[in-house]
């Protein structure tokens, strides 16, 4: 979240799209409903299915799965055509006035530079024109037809109401309702927030769904303000923490980039990843990149990381250039037999990953699997699952009992980037250990073996700092957290302050590129005060702004800032656009309110003032965003498996930059009459993801006992299915039997002259337990991911539904 949960109460319009907030994030609705009760806020829910979120919304708007960009593109057009944007904000705080390179073009669904054979773009023409000083050329009057605002307008000119309606299946009147209501926040004294989750990310155009909304929020001046922002409701209680700590393969802790093989020296790596700017008033915060990387290497390799040896950079594993190690590719390599061993901690990929038949088969090609979990699940027991002959499966599986969350101390990072320290409620049962303990012991063992037996390249293991144990030699969460925060490794004087060796670094602005500081994750630097006080354990309820920032409850990254980009909530003179919702205010030469996005004075100070979007090299919000795989503006493409044979906006049916998996098990259908219905998948309130933890809980399986498919009354009639009857749902990749839930909450979509039926299933069930609960919807989902992140397209694919 750019903002945070409590801040939802400050919004005037709450757009929930790509999320079923009431069911998946029940606590979010405390603040959604408070906004309505206290401010008269309007709640809009856009979703293919009428859910418990829709039930409480002021407006429920239906759209066909996978057509969000068409829907949002129509809103961008509406805002531009009707001049609903916040002009001062758009002119000064975004790249709307920047002039785009002459060679950039867009034609019939493709941007300039497309290589069809490689399914990739040469992005060199997706650029901003620079003047002689290397500063972006601008036209603040927006008259230049090549300026970003005019190019944006031209791009979305095709997204008129009728066209959008014919793609999304949303009636024109409903589109108008949303566009008018949401665009009403493009003024100083109204705020609009957007809540999304996996309903946006789990598409082949996932990142661009979010980009489209970011464009809207920038146009309306909703970024950086209270009650605004673009807010990802994270699923698992600490999943924000796990991504912050680099659970994904393309990053190091703190979202530093994973090095690639061609970056053989630290200098080459830093040069590639440290952005430069000639824009005089841009803070370009990432110019500090070397400080964060060197401090990370010092945290990992301590005294063995010296300037002379590149601070141990050679020890860090490198990706091959262009290599993608995300989960779909990992399973693909496992399926090919190229990956021999698999360590799986706290997951149930046999249920959660798409094309589960392929996943389960891939596990059978392993030599070994180590599975760490609090219960047995369909992954650990895959070898005795449906269609498996245990005698023929060679994989040796080790199931290691783990401690549950309430049996461990440590920090939890919530969606609002707030870290709260928690304590052990109960010791883990039997031999169960915390994952921290398991990893701690494993690495100690490895260090012993590498020290004794050497091996080809022992340095990364032998030289690793590994001193996170308490007095009894067990893993110590507090010691680990302090190392993550980072220490001064020598006495260091910064400004008029001198910090002693061994003190905690109180914020990443103090980190150094010369090896005098360590930090295991720069964005978490500051969670401890210099004297070692754990700020994550704070529980003070003071709220000086009245906006619900609660600055002394826990600690939020970065540097306890509760609303990101908050310099965009004030005008050039540092005065809030909306005084009744003042996140920041420049008073007597000082910022008052939230922790500002950098200490500099307001923008009107031509010497020291800085632009608000400090993480962007140009200092402004990017309406034109050239970094993504499929283009600088979001464009509508149909899902890989969709009901239409033609994209109504261009000749490009699917996202041109996605990877196509081509094994026989990766089969997909396009407009195949055997699979005529759109299907989407989701979770329910009562179960947690795969249900691997919750299906063992009798009160929860009582409430949601068995797998079901939700279908409209119209489809039920078409197929002769009665409510509660057993049905078979089938895709080119698999089939599942489950109970039909015939409901008025799904309706057929009128798309052009076609009637399109959509159905939906939960993925909460697996064959292991309870025995009669059914199996996962992921036996049906396709092996395909977003072009940037490889997040699987769980939300839109094609199936058939028949009575058993």
């Amino acid at each position, binding site marked *: 979240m750019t903002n945070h949960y409590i801040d939802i109460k400050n919004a005037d319009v709450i757009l929930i799209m790509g999320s079923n907030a*009431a*069911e998946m994030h*029940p*606590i979010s*609705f*405390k603040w959604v*409903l408070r906004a309505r*009760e206290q401010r008269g806020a309007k709640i809009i829910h856009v979703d293919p299915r*009428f859910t*418990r*979120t*829709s*039930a*409480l919304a002021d407006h*429920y708007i239906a759209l066909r799965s996978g057509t969000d960009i068409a829907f949002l593109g129509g809103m961008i057009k509406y805002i531009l055509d009707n001049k609903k944007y916040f002009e001062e904000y758009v002119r000064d705080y975004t790249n709307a006035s920047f002039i785009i390179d002459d060679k950039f073009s867009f034609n019939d669904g493709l941007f300039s530079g497309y290589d069809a054979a490689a399914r990739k773009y040469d992005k060199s023409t997706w650029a901003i024109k620079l003047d002689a000083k290397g500063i972006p050329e601008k036209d603040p009057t927006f008259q230049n037809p090549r300026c970003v605002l005019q190019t944006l307008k031209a791009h979305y000119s095709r997204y008129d109401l009728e066209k959008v309606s014919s793609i999304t299946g949303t009636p024109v009147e409903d589109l108008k309702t949303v566009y008018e209501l949401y665009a009403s926040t493009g003024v100083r004294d109204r705020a609009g927030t957007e809540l999304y989750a996996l309903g946006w990310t789990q598409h082949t155009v996932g990142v661009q769904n979010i980009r489209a909304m970011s464009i809207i929020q920038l146009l309306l001046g909703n970024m950086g303000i209270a009650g605004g922002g673009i807010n990802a409701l994270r699923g698992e209680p600490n999943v924000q923490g796990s991504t912050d700590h680099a659970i994904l393969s393309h990053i190091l802790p703190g979202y530093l980039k994973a090095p690639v093989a061609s970056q053989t020296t630290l200098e080459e790596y830093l040069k590639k990843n440290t952005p430069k700017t000639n824009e005089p008033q841009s803070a370009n915060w990432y110019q500090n990149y070397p400080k964060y990387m060197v401090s990370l290497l010092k945290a990992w390799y301590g005294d063995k990381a010296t300037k002379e040896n590149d601070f141990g950079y050679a020890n860090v594993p490198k990706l091959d250039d262009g290599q993608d190690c995300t989960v779909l590719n990992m399973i693909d390599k496992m399926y090919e037999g190229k990956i021999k061993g698999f360590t799986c901690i706290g997951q149930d990929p046999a249920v959660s990953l798409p094309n589960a038949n392929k996943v389960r088969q891939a596990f059978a090609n392993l030599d070994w699997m180590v599975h760490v979990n609090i219960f047995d699940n369909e992954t650990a027991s895959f070898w005795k699952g449906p269609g498996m002959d245990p005698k023929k499966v060679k994989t040796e599986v080790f199931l290691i009992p783990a401690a549950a969350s309430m049996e461990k101390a440590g920090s939890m990072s919530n969606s609002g980037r707030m870290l709260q320290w928690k304590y052990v409620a109960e010791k883990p049962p039997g031999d169960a250990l915390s994952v921290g303990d398991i990893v701690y012991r494993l690495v100690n063992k490895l260090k012993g073996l590498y020290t004794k037996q050497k091996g080809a390249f022992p340095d990364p293991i032998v030289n690793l700092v590994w001193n996170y144990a308490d007095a009894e030699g067990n893993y110590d969460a507090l010691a680990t957290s302090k190392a993550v925060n980072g220490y001064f490794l020598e006495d260091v004087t910064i400004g008029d302050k001198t910090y002693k060796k061994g003190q905690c670094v109180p914020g990443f602005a103090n980190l150094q590129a010369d090896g005098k500081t360590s930090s295991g994750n720069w964005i978490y630097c500051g969670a401890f005060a210099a004297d070692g006080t754990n700020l994550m354990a704070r529980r003070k309820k003071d709220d000086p702004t009245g906006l619900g920032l609660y600055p002394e409850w826990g600690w939020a990254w970065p540097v306890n800032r509760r609303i990101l980009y908050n310099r965009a909530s004030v005008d050039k003179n540092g005065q809030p656009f909306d005084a009744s919702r003042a996140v920041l205010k420049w008073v007597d030469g000082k910022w008052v309110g939230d922790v500002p996005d950098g200490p500099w004075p307001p923008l009107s100070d031509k010497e020291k003032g800085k632009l608000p979007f400090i993480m962007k090299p140009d200092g402004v919000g990017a309406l034109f965003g050239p970094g993504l795989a499929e283009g600088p503006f979001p464009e509508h493409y149909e899902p890989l498996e969709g009901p239409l044979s033609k994209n109504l906006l261009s000749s490009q049916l699917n996202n041109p930059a996605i990877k196509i998996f081509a094994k026989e098990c990766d089969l997909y259908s396009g407009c195949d009459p055997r699979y005529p219905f759109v299907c989407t998948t989701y979770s*329910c*309130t*009562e179960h947690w993801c795969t249900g691997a933890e919750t299906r063992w*809980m*009798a*009160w*929860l*399986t*009582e*409430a*949601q*006992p*068995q*797998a*079901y498919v939700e279908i409209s009354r119209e489809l039920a009639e078409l197929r002769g299915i009665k*409510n*509660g*009857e057993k049905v078979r749902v089938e895709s080119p990749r698999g089939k599942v039997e*489950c*109970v*039909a*839930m*015939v*409901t*008025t*909450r799904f*309706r057929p979509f009128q798309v052009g002259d076609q009637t399109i039926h959509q159905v939906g299933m939960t993925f909460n069930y697996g064959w292991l337990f309870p025995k009669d609960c059914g199996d996962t919807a992921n036996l049906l989902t396709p092996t395909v991911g977003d072009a940037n992140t490889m997040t699987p397209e769980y939300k839109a694919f094609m199936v058939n539904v028949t009575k058993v």
Partner: protein
Amino acid sequence: MANGKSILVDTSKCTACRGCQVACKQWNGLPGTKTKQVGTYQNPQDVSAQTWKLVHFSEGVKENGKPYWYFFSEQCRHCLEPPCMDTIDGYVDGGAVRDKETGAVLYTGKSKEAPFEDVRNSCPYNIPRQDQKTKVLAKCTMCLDRITNDRIPACVLSCPTGAMAFGDRDAILDMAKKRVEELKKAYPKAVALDADQVRVIYIVVDDATKYYKFAAA
């Protein structure tokens, strides 16, 4: 007795997360029963000796053609003049008791001596149920053990949105009145159901029967 205690259930703020349904079982030591998916989110299908709090799900289509989905987290209303108590008293002394301080109505072990069907039929809300083995009658206790120890009922505590509130009856009645007035602006049919007769007061914004057959007396 002063005016005792009351619970307010504002269905306009209920997301049907069923935290209350589970919290009731957790605090009262009630088991999860074996259920089947029968084509609805609602499960179990009915209250029972093992399920004292149950969220009802009712869906349909509004006059404007848009769907609706109403949630009604059913429990004993703890009537000011409980007809079930009169019925039980007609057969056995002390089969039902009313707590003087709070007004909570409870069944005792002696309730097994009262004919179950008569008791059930006397309740306008169809609440009383019987334990199949012991024949003792069962229902919500207003968490009397909690509320007489400075704690709020388990269901109220579990509610993430604040759809439920517990307190002195006068304060709850006042809260209900204000909330209904506020809701009436957008929902002319908003009403606090049977507020003068019951301690567990439900606010609904549409016809009560659209929520659940026995929502109102």
